């Protein structure tokens, strides 16, 4: 279970677009820091900082393999927040589908008196 402090770290980590892109890339599988850094035009220390933030937030895990430190997603790291946002999206999607129908009915009533 996440404490509110660790949740704060999760949010802070996810607030940055570079870090979200790193997570999206890692969703495809394990990758080394060098491989992950390739698409980004930022300095190596800056990139390492992003990796550290993600790791401290518990979103990714790293293992040692010689001099390489391959990264992968931490299992279940985003599940609680994801689950909530998904629930909200589903509930609102259904609401607005019903509202679409209601509005269409009103328009029809106005158009054929």
């Amino acid at each position, binding site marked *: 279970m996440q404490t509110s402090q660790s949740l704060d770290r999760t949010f802070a980590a996810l607030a940055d677009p570079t870090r*979200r*892109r790193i997570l999206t890339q890692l969703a495809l599988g394990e990758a080394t820091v060098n491989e992950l850094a390739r698409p980004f035009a930022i300095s190596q220390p800056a990139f390492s900082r992003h990796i550290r933030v993600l790791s401290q937030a518990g979103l990714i895990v790293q293992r040692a393999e010689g001099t390489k430190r391959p990264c992968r997603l931490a299992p279940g790291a*985003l599940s609680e927040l994801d689950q909530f946002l998904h629930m909200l999206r589903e*509930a609102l999607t259904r*609401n*607005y589908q019903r509202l679409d129908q*209601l*509005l269409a009915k009103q328009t029809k009533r106005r158009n054929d008196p």
Partner: protein
Amino acid sequence: MSKLALTTEGDTHVVVTRRFEAPPEAVYRAHLDPDLLRQWCLGPDGWTMPVCINEGRPGGKMRYEWSNGRGGFYLTGEILELDPPHRIVHVERMHMPEPTPDNRVVTTFVADGTGTLMTMRMSLPDQETRKAMLATGMERGMEASYARLERLSGWTVAS
């Protein structure tokens, strides 16, 4: 394009946008008129709204009660500002049965061609509140195992 967009704004807010094929007057009214609200503001299938009070004026009260036949929860709130048909500001809280922290919601309706673009900005509940909301059964029908990539893609567009 009527697809719902749901994004997070920092770590404190959620912004929802949705287009409707009806003028702002109609979409605005559907957000305040209890007879209309009871027909659409129900969340997942299987829920009804036996009680729907919305006084539809600044300072007016709101009370929505939902039931799925086995149990339910309710929401109370107050309307803070109305600028018909463009803007509704209200505050709401869920009772499950303990009240959740107040959530200030700003909903705007802007004409978009023959339709309306609605934007709703609200607080992102804290973790405790989210857990309580999930536990109400609002998640009924949700599968626990969404493709990780899909979830993360959601985050990627949420910038």
